[in-house]
């Protein structure tokens, strides 16, 4: 079992009122799954995502990640869990602007006991098709390319799970599909992938869709035939050739 959540609740105190952003959520994700969490803004999906990513700890409930309980861990241990077990991809790429693509990908290796070195970072960039852009600055890359660098950064530590928060939110259709194709490829290779989105069309690339509303899971369905990003790309009008 990759993820096992039991009655996980996250409560925020705001102006004297307490707000349950995540309300007694129980959830199981097996290794090798591709799960999309979908919900409108304010549904609590980002909070749930932060809990799964070990960026935050639940107010109550139990969370086991890759066989170890993490809900009671201290800050240092949580940092190590993030570093070794989780590969995060954000909506706004979150690359450091004054580092090259390669240096950005190497960054997680700084913070853990990784045997991996610069070679691993280069390999990760090649896996997302950016092997030749390793010395480019983020500002020299398109949005889609920057997000692929971010995926390479998430992959470099060989994490147990890839977590993506609205990864296509800032991308055009084609770049978004390219990205989904990468996630689908990674999943086919056996990686556990979870993504948070508010777009049904994006969610339908996953093999399982969990809907969230008001901090609770309202549905949890297997997708009979997920959309195939590569096939969709082929149907798009021919891309303008960029110089």
């Amino acid at each position, binding site marked *: 079992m990759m993820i096992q959540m039991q009655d996980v609740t996250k409560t925020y105190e705001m102006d004297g009122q307490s707000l349950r952003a995540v309300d007694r959520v129980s959830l199981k994700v097996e290794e090798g799954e591709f799960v999309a969490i979908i919900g409108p803004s304010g549904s609590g999906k980002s909070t749930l995502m*932060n809990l799964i*990513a070990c*960026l*935050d700890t639940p107010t109550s409930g139990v969370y086991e990640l890759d066989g170890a309980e993490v809900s009671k861990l201290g*800050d*240092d241990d949580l*940092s*190590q869990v*993030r*570093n*070794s077990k989780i590969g*995060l991809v*954000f909506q706004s790429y*979150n690359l*450091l602007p*004054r*580092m090259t693509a390669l240096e950005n990908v190497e*960054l*997680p290796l*700084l*913070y*853990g006991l990784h045997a991996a070195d610069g070679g691993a970072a280069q390999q990760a960039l090649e896996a997302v098709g950016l092997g030749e852009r390793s010395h480019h600055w983020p500002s020299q890359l398109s949005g889609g390319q920057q997000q692929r660098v971010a995926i390479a*950064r998430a992959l470099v*530590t060989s994490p147990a799970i890839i977590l993506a928060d609205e990864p296509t939110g800032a991308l055009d259709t084609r770049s978004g599909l390219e990205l989904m194709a990468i996630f689908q490829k990674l999943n086919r290779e056996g990686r556990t992938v979870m993504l948070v989105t508010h777009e049904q069309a994006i969610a339908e690339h996953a093999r399982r869709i969990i809907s969230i509303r008001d901090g609770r899971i309202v549905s949890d369905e297997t997708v009979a035939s997920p959309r195939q990003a590569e096939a969709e790309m082929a149907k798009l009008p021919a891309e303008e050739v960029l110089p």
Partner: protein
Amino acid sequence: MSIKRTLQEALRGLLANKARTFLMMVGVIIGIAALITIVAVGQGAKAKVAQSAGKMWGTNPLMVTAGAGNPNAGPHMGMGVGVGAQTLTMEDLQAIEKEVPNVRKASPGLLKSDVQVKHQEQAATTEVFGITPEFREYRSWDVDSGVFITDADVSSLARVALIGQTVARQLYGDEDPVGFRIMIDNVKFEVKGLLAAKGTNPQGADADNRIMIPVTTFSRRLYNVDYLSNIVVQLKDVNRMNETASAITTLLRDRHQIVPPKQDDFAVRTPSGIVKMFAGTSQALTIFLGIVSGIALLVGGLVIMNIMLISIGERTREIGIRRALGARRKDILRQFLAEALLVTLSGGLIGILVGIAAALLLSAAKGMPTVISWQAISLAVVFSVGVGIIFGVQPAQRAARLNPVEALRGK
């Protein structure tokens, strides 16, 4: 994260905003430069004082002067305190020589100020010293021309005089005065030698405005006195200076029947006391520059702290990303502390160079003696690191305490 990588990350952070980094350094540069300059000027002054005190005072003798009073003050490096006081005698001298161990030689000295001297129509007012031939050795003071006073001059009460350059100029112009006559308080003397120039002593008195005659001629032929102004004691072993000084004090108290609360009617001076006295004069300057340096370092530190706080505000997002990727609080703390330390340390190094340049400039332009010492440089490095830690810790802690989720939401 390894130290090397921590420093690399810190350097990257600093190079990202060079103007701001320089601004952070300015205070440290000024403070450290001031510190280096102070120490250079202070030590230079001390060295000069020690050197000139050594020049005036000669090589390691003790001096006993007649009369009470502050043993380390006096207009003539102690020579003049005995003027008028009649408490030291030739018998005291012989007792010192005979009874105090470690005494190699004790030499008598006499002094009279405001003495009228004449040569033909030229007149001058000067000081007359009664000395023995040992004076030449213990004061390292020889004649430029002619011959020094000899033992024969002393035993025969010879009417011979050594005259200082200032007196010589006043009475003889540019001529070599050796062989000429000189009238000292209307007694006829022959100029036997022209003393080497000594210039002004550290208190600004003209050391060349003096005449020296044999001590016996002074006491028996010229002024008919039976006391001594001072006794210069040369030692066998200069390392036992202090114990010898107290032995002499004990002996003289005994001889002069001084028991508390009666005050000593003599004073025993050591060269280190003299050096200490003059070192005091440069202390005011040192204190002033020290305050300047301290304020500059304090302000510099506060500037660093403020800029770091601003910078951390702007880099909240970066901190959030690093935390999300697995940086622990202490990794963030170390990164920002390393930035502060790099700023203060490189500011300190620039400050050291600026300080050395300022010290050299002071020596060149104002003739101020300066000494650049390793101690000063190490002190500067220690201060730089200290400022970095003291003023860097708080902002770095603030950065480390940021909540990852909120930091990721930040700009």
